[in-house]
């Protein structure tokens, strides 16, 4: 996704000289072209995320559109208070971008697992939270956050679900995308793990004749309430899929929404991280399997709720 983001940002920055890319000394090789072509719009602030965010706020308050970029938890948790107090409270036009959602950097260890960021960022008022699941969504989301005033968080992933954009399709922040129709259950995914949800839907159809609706919930704030309610009303149950702890992220969002509006799903399961930090390391693929986040785990969850409903 980082290449899609980098290219989309370069296109935007060529058109608008107020777009500034600020990195906390990360993104090796990703921004070479950007840096070469638009050196005045590129700023490496060094390994100093708190200052990076504060500087971005100062520039945003003066009319610039700064993107702060780093990996894992560095552009979010490391400078969370700067995001809350300086960016969000002032509705500063700062775009926080993290590459490395979930286990993207799985082998680097716990420090590099971004597995609580969605819950934490979506709790902050006035912030837009976007977590694209495919390359098309990444490109579209990058353009969309520039047009969205105020502080935005863009969570990028190493994995992705290819290109799911359809000809003529319009991307809107806050509008979920239904990628498959089905009534037996709904798989709602956010981020690159959308690929596992699509894989699981294929397997369920082929091997079990279970038709799953698949929804890409690329925006967690604002989010598409009507699509969630439709899934609860129209399908046999909801399985949420996120490379994130089960608390407070996508699954939490959907559970609290459906209870609040009085449309609990017929069955509900959150595929996500449980049971503490992931101390094991490995590839994203390995860790998904190891922590029951892969397509097989999603298939099992659907089979389980299907048996409950039958």
């Amino acid at each position, binding site marked *: 996704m980082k290449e899609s983001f980098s290219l989309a940002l370069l296109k935007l920055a060529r058109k608008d000289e107020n777009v500034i890319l600020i990195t906390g000394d990360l993104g090796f090789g990703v921004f070479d072209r950007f840096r070469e072509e638009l050196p005045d719009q590129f700023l490496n602030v060094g390994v100093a995320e708190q*200052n990076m965010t504060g500087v971005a*706020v100062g520039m945003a308050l003066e009319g610039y559109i*700064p993107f702060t970029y780093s990996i894992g938890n560095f552009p979010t948790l490391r400078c969370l208070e700067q995001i809350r107090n*300086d960016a969000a409270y002032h509705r500063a036009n700062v775009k926080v971008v993290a590459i490395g959602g979930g286990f993207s950097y799985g082998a680097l260890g716990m420090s590099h697992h971004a597995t609580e960021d969605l819950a934490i960022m979506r709790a902050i008022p006035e912030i837009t939270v976007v977590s694209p699941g495919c390359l098309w969504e990444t490109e579209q989301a990058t353009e969309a956050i520039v047009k969205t005033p105020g502080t935005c968080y863009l969570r990028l992933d190493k994995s992705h679900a290819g290109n799911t954009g359809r000809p003529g399709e319009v991307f809107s922040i806050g509008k979920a995308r239904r990628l498959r129709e089905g009534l037996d259950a709904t798989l709602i995914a956010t981020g690159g793990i959308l690929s596992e949800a699509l894989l699981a839907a294929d397997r369920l159809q082929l091997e079990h004749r279970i038709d799953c609706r698949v929804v890409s919930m690329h925006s967690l704030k604002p989010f598409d309430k009507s699509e969630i309610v439709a899934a609860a009303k129209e399908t046999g149950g909801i399985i949420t899929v996120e490379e994130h702890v089960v608390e407070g992220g996508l699954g939490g969002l959907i559970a609290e929404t459906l209870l609040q509006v009085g449309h609990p799903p017929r069955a509900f399961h959150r595929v996500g991280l449980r049971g503490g930090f992931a101390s094991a390391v490995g590839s994203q693929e390995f860790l998904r399997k190891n922590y029951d986040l892969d397509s097989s785990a999603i298939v099992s969850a659907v089979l389980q709720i299907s048996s409950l409903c039958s």
Partner: protein
Amino acid sequence: MISPGTTTVDLAKRLRIHVLRMTSSGGSSHIGAAYSMADIIAVLYGGSLRVDPRNPNWENRDRFILSKGHAGACVYAALAECGFFELAKLETHYKDGSDLSGHVSHLGNPGVELSTGSLGHGLSVGSGMALAAKKSGKAFRVFVQMSDGECDEGSNWEAILFAAHHRLDNLTAIVDYNKIQSLDLVSQTLGLEPFADKWAAFGWGVVEVDGHDHDQLRAAFAALPLQGGKPTVVIAHTIKGRGVSFMENSVLWHYRTGRAEEYEAALKELEAS
């Protein structure tokens, strides 16, 4: 701006009286920290800062950030004295429903550039503003009022590196060096000395002044930037609680609220000054 004929010494006295009333009536803390910087604020708002109360968002205004947000009462008082909002509003400070919060807030308060309260935020934001001014060729200057205790925060040292690296000579940090932080003396908590040397070693122009001597403060602000291509730090040696004898140099008056006899005694001293 302040009415003609009012000196910055007059203004400082009024700021201290406002702050006493605001903190006593609202029941808030931090009078000591407001008094140590009252002379600095009076000199800034009494003429050194280029601001326009009739046009608070004037593009070329100097940006002033109170990074030691806990001393907000003093800045609110200065803004009201200058006409950014009504003096009567000061009476709401720290009270239910007011937007004059204990730590300075921009919402509803013209003239406040940045809401603060958590220490170690202002200098980074100020650096971003100063960089923006350089990039866009604007002539405004950025002033960040810091505390000494605040210099414990590592984020400030990130910003200190950054501002020097980017040669932000349109940025001035002012440190209210009253030598007392929340619970104890700075020297007993996390020593800063040799303080001026540290800033100089990080690439800043450094000037030390008596933070209660208006002529020294005015001269320092008139000479900015101290060195072309470098941000400037004005290290203002001050006395916590300055202006009321029993509050001066006292850790107690970081948090204590002056009430009843203490309030009356303080008011008497200030009015007689």
